[in-house]
């Protein structure tokens, strides 16, 4: 298991902690009525985004979902611009025009979160088509949830990706719930079998184990670059929070005991930390230092973003069209 070096492991750990801290701060911003609109927390799923994105390079592309902060951080985004975007400030990644559900980071290959369930699957497949046609060896990862397997678009694009052998990895983050309904009530049959029906190789992995995710991702990304794609991964994971930040009392669809069990036994950060200290790669002090530094970073970024200015009103009709029009 110990394939990468210490630096890589610590970076993985740090990225997961960054995501957790970002979400905690974002949650607070919402609850204290400082953030406009709604957002969707990724807490609990960190190993999925980090495990996969650590196998990608900057020019590889990802598409994200409404639950997109984790992917955004994992693909290299900075706290300041992310918080600014969530608050609708001018320095946000999208100049405040996208918000949490449309956050995109073009320079890091993040083609954007999408508020339409399954809405970015076409875009991801198209990015893979571009890569193949233009002869880059870029790979695209399409993140989506178990709920999106109900969207027709998924089948249309997987069909074409398979027909044209596109370098795209469809990563299904199965967190057991599609909004407020259990997955087994909205997805008939097997999720991986859907991909296999198109002749696409499909894999299942424990989404809480960052090393397992990363290991699988590295293999599939390498094969994609050789033209062996597409691929499909189902990652078993869990979101600690509700569907969105206002979904606080959830026991009508999800039991507290279940939530407690995942927190206690399947937390990706806790477990990876335990593995690192167990293997002697890092000691608790180093991990604590990382935790503290990231927390401070996040707090500073939030303070910065709260103070930052909104875009000027004159920007409202800019960027409808590209170029002089």
């Amino acid at each position, binding site marked *: 298991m110990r394939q990468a070096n210490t630096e890589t492991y610590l970076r993985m750990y740090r990225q997961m902690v960054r995501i957790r801290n970002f979400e905690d701060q974002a949650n607070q911003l919402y609850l204290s009525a400082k953030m406009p609109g709604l957002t969707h927390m990724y807490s609990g799923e960190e190993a999925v985004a980090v495990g996969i994105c650590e196998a990608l390079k900057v020019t590889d592309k990802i598409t994200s979902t409404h639950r997109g902060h984790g992917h955004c951080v994992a693909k290299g985004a900075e706290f300041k611009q992310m918080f600014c975007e969530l608050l609708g400030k001018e320095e946000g990644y999208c100049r405040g025009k996208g918000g949490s559900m449309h956050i995109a980071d073009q320079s890091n290959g993040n083609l*954007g979160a999408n508020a339409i369930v399954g809405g970015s699957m076409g875009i991801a497949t198209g990015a893979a088509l571009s890569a193949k046609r233009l002869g880059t060896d870029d790979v*695209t990862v399409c993140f989506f949830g178990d709920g999106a397997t109900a969207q*027709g678009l998924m089948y249309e694009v997987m069909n*074409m990706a398979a027909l044209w052998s596109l370098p795209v990895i469809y990563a299904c983050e199965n967190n057991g719930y599609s909004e407020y309904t259990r997955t087994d009530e909205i997805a008939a049959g097997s999720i991986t079998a859907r991909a296999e029906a198109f002749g696409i190789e499909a894999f299942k992995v424990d989404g809480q184990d960052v090393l397992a995710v990363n290991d699988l991702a590295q293999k599939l990304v390498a094969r994609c670059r050789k033209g062996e794609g597409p691929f499909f991964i189902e990652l078993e994971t869990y979101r600690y929070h509700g569907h969105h930040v206002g979904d606080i009392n959830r026991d009508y669809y999800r039991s507290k005991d279940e939530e407690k069990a995942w927190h206690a036994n399947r937390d990706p950060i806790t477990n990876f930390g335990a593995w690192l200290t167990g293997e002697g790669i890092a000691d608790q002090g180093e991990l604590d230092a990382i935790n503290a530094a990231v927390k401070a970073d996040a707090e500073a970024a939030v303070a910065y973003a709260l103070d930052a200015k909104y875009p000027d009103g004159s920007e409202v009709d*800019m960027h409808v*069209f590209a*170029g002089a029009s």
Partner: protein
Amino acid sequence: MMREITLSTAVNEAIAEEMRRDETIFLIGEDVAEAGTPFKITSGLVEEFGTDRVIDTPIAEPGFMGIAVGAAMTGSRPIVDLMFGDFIFLIMDQLCNQAAKTHYMSGGKLNVPLVLRTNMGATRRSAAQHSQSLHAIVAHIPGLKIAMPSSALEAKGLLKTAIRDDNPVVIFEDKLMYQDKAPVPEGELLIPFGQANIKREGTDITLIGTSSMVQVAEKAAETLAAEGISAEVIDPRTIVPLDMDTINASVRKTSRCIVIDEGHQSFGVTSEIAARIMEQSFYHLDGPVIRMGAMDVPIPFSPALEDITVPTPEGVIATARKLMAGEMFDV
């Protein structure tokens, strides 16, 4: 004597010339390769450019539209062929929620340089789900440009401009005009967006027509001229952006206007143009601006019924006479 080519050939030329010029352009849609589409427009392209650049898709409109959007966001310039304009309803999320809004939602950082080529026009006996003219619906969405060629000349010039535009552009070709010939010059031909064309000058009444309604207006103008009514015919060529300067100048000259379009009468392009004229040239109007669109009915199959539903030269002539006589149009 300038050569005359069909609208179909003009489109083919435009695509081929652009694809030779820029390798990032590719064509994607149903039956676009060997079959050249059911309208035989793209015949020959796959032989020149290969299946890598002329891509046949399964019958999966949302799918290949979404793929085109993603490709456009990542360095390619796709031309999407949507076999019938009626199918635009199938791709609305990818076109209107994704393509149209991506540049804006990303604060100007992501571009979607794609062209959606589709068609419009009734009286082909294709019934309600293959005869619609739905340009008004997408013209309503900020972030999309809409072009409406009225002949082979515009079909070539507007398509080439569309392909070079960094924004999502929807072009509606009139499916009944694919075999109609018109003079088209050799060589480079780029028609800019937002520039209307005055097809016939006149002094008594302005007739604004889109797509094949330009020909309807021109026929009406001929007959009206014999009665001593001098009609000016204007082809906006693109409805987004819309050239109101030319339209206003004409209406201020003539003080009377009829707008003719093949979308349905209610809530359509004619209403938008008429409203803008009313706002901007109000004190120059000597009569109401009259809208003439297709009837507000699903397009019927029977020829006896279908032909009644669309604007005709006779209808335009009758309306023009009424306007000139100062009659009222109240209900």
